C-alpha cells in the first residue's frame, strides 16, 4: 500500500491530489504507471512527460525495478516550472 501524490496537470486529470493504492512490492516504474492509469485513464495523455518521485527520488518511467515499502510516497511529477 503506497501513497500516490498528484501534482499540477496530473492532479487535474486524476481529479485528486492524494490516494492510497495497493501495488506489488516489486514492480517496474512503467508497470506502476500502468496500474495508476487503470484507476485514472485520463492520465494516459501525459505519459511521455512525467516522471515519478519514489521516496523523493526521481525515477523515469521504464524498466527500473522499484522495491516499495508499505507507506512509501510515490509522486507523479509533470514537467516542472519553478523559479
Amino acid at each position: 500500500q503506497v501513497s500516490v501524490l498528484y501534482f499540477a496537470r496530473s492532479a487535474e486529470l486524476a481529479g485528486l491530489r492524494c490516494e492510497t493504492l495497493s501495488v506489488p512490492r516489486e514492480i517496474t516504474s512503467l508497470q506502476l504507471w500502468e496500474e495508476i492509469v487503470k484507476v485514472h485513464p485520463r492520465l494516459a495523455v501525459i505519459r511521455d512527460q512525467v516522471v515519478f518521485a519514489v521516496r523523493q527520488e526521481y525515477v523515469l518511467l521504464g524498466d527500473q525495478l522499484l522495491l516499495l515499502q508499505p507507506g512509501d510516497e510515490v509522486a507523479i511529477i509533470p514537467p516542472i516550472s519553478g523559479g
Partner: protein
Amino acid sequence: MEESEDVPKDFVKLKCEKLSVDEVSELVVSPYCGAVSLFIGTTRNNFEGKKVIHLEYEAYTSMAETEIKKICRDVRQKWPSVKHIAVHHRLGVVPITEASVIIAVSSPHRAESLEAVMYCINTLKASVPIWKKEIYEDEYSWKENKECFWANSEK
C-alpha cells in the same frame, strides 16, 4: 563575532506570503563577507501575445525543500568560500511584477556569490518540484521549464 561563530547557513523557505528582498538579503549578510549577490524572479505580464493575469505556483513541498538543500550543498562544494545561502520561493497566487523567487548568496569576494546565485536559479529550474500555472484572460497553461531534464518539448 568570531568567524568561527559565523557558521555557514542555508535558509530555505516556501511561503504563500509576499517575498521580501530586504528580509532575504539580511539573512545572508555577514561581517566576513564583502559581497551579497541576489536574484529576483518576477512575474511578466505577457506570454506569446497573451495577457497574463497572474501566476499560481504549487509544490511537492517536502521534496522541493530537500532538493533546494541539495543545491545549497552543491554550491558549497563548488564555491567553498560561500558563506550563507537563502532561497525563498512563493507558492499560491503571485500577481504581476511581484517576486516568485529570491535567491541571495554571500561570500568574501564577489565572483563566488555571483556565480553561485546563477547556479542556484539554473539548477532550481531543472530539478525542484515546483509548478507554475499562467492564468490568461480566457484560459490557463501549466508551464514547463526548458531546463526540466525529462520534459519532451517537442510534444
